[in-house]
């Protein structure tokens, strides 16, 4: 895959906002930043689809719409099926000579609920059938718009309303599902992780995903001030800390080959730079119960899980 697109910050700033202001995502919402940045990478006519989720409910409150690209809302489980259908429809139109564009990019955005849990079979099917689309998982690590219920993406030890921290249970007892490994196992041409803190890396990866011939998957961390219990000004700080602690390492996998992205590569080359997970955990109220004598051990467990996944990733990247 040869990639030639270059841009400056100014060029990105001069691009139109395809997600219009006036949307009703919370103050400081990480998902809003992720969407704005990914949409700066579009290369021509583009159609976007969302299943139910935070971004859908806040950008299409009747009669208002924040979408400046053609946009389709679909049911919670069907983001990838819908994207597949849109792509197939364009193919059919082209075959009949009824498409006035050379190419139309198709993007599906879904949250963690719509991806790890409810949408996974539609996603798996669309990946297997090889549809040419970009799937962006904006991961705020719980069902946020319905009131912070745990999902398959919620990390170990996090408080949610369905994994409350009590006297017996220290928040969520299980680590999150490694969704990006599941996608990689489908043998698709492009899979990557990204963080809005590293905005340029995110924009580049979104464009690479669009350019890939076949399914592409982008997993982006999207901190949520309400659900993670932190002050709205810290969204970017946390999405940076997630990378610095290796809770959310940045990498891409092109045609099955893993490669670390610059911020994580720096840590791999100089392990002293790797920050302890405590720094990430103590910045968020959803982990505050872990800083008590009875649950302290969970912090060690989280560190162990993070270290293990980091170690396995380094092996995959042959570092």
């Amino acid at each position: 895959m040869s990639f030639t697109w270059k841009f400056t910050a100014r060029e990105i700033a001069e691009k139109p906002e395809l997600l219009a202001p006036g949307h009703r995502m919370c103050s400081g919402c990480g998902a809003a930043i992720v969407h704005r940045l990914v949409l700066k990478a579009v290369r021509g006519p583009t159609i976007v689809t969302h299943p139910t989720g935070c971004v859908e409910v806040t950008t299409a409150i009747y009669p208002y719409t924040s979408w400046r690209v053609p946009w389709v809302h679909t049911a919670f489980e069907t983001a990838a099926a819908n994207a597949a259908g849109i792509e197939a429809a364009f193919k059919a139109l082209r075959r009949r000579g009824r498409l006035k564009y050379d190419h139309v990019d198709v993007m599906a955005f879904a949250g963690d609920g719509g991806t790890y849990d409810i949408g996974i079979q539609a996603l798996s099917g669309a990946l297997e059938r090889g549809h040419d689309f970009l799937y962006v998982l904006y991961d705020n690590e719980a069902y946020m718009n319905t009131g912070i219920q745990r999902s398959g993406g919620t990390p170990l030890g996090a408080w949610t309303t369905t994994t409350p921290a009590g006297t017996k249970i220290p928040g969520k007892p299980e680590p999150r599902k490694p969704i990006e490994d599941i996608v990689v196992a489908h043998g698709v041409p492009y899979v990557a992780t990204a963080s809005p803190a590293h905005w340029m890396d995110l924009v580049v990866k979104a464009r690479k995903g669009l350019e890939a011939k076949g399914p592409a998957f982008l997993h982006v961390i999207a901190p949520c001030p309400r659900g993670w219990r932190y002050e709205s000004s810290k969204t970017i700080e946390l999405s940076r800390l997630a990378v610095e602690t290796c809770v959310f390492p940045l990498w891409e996998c092109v045609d099955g080959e893993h490669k670390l992205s610059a911020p994580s590569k720096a840590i791999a080359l100089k392990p002293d730079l790797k920050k302890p997970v405590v720094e990430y955990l103590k910045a968020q109220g959803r982990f505050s119960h872990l800083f008590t004598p009875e649950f302290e051990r969970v912090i060690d467990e989280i560190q162990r899980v993070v270290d293990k996944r980091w170690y396995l990733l380094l092996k995959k990247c042959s570092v």
Partner: protein
Amino acid sequence: MSSYEKGWKEVSIAGVCWLPSTKYLTGDWSPYKPVRDKAKCNKCLLCHMYCPDGAVIWNSKAEDIEFNYNFCKGCGICANECPQGAIEIILK
């Protein structure tokens, strides 16, 4: 809001949203707003990249950034991330 509402006979097919959200001002959500010290700013544009609400605008004619207070929700991200410490969040 109600002045924009259509009756059931005029409603768009399948209730498709038809009014741009730029008609819905979110600038009154917060008692806070950012102000910038122009002398400190080096126009790196990080505040533009990180604003969840597209409320930091690059004005290419004036070659400068501007806040759109109609939509700014006062989250404080721009102030927190500005490498020059040029942005301050103040009470409106």
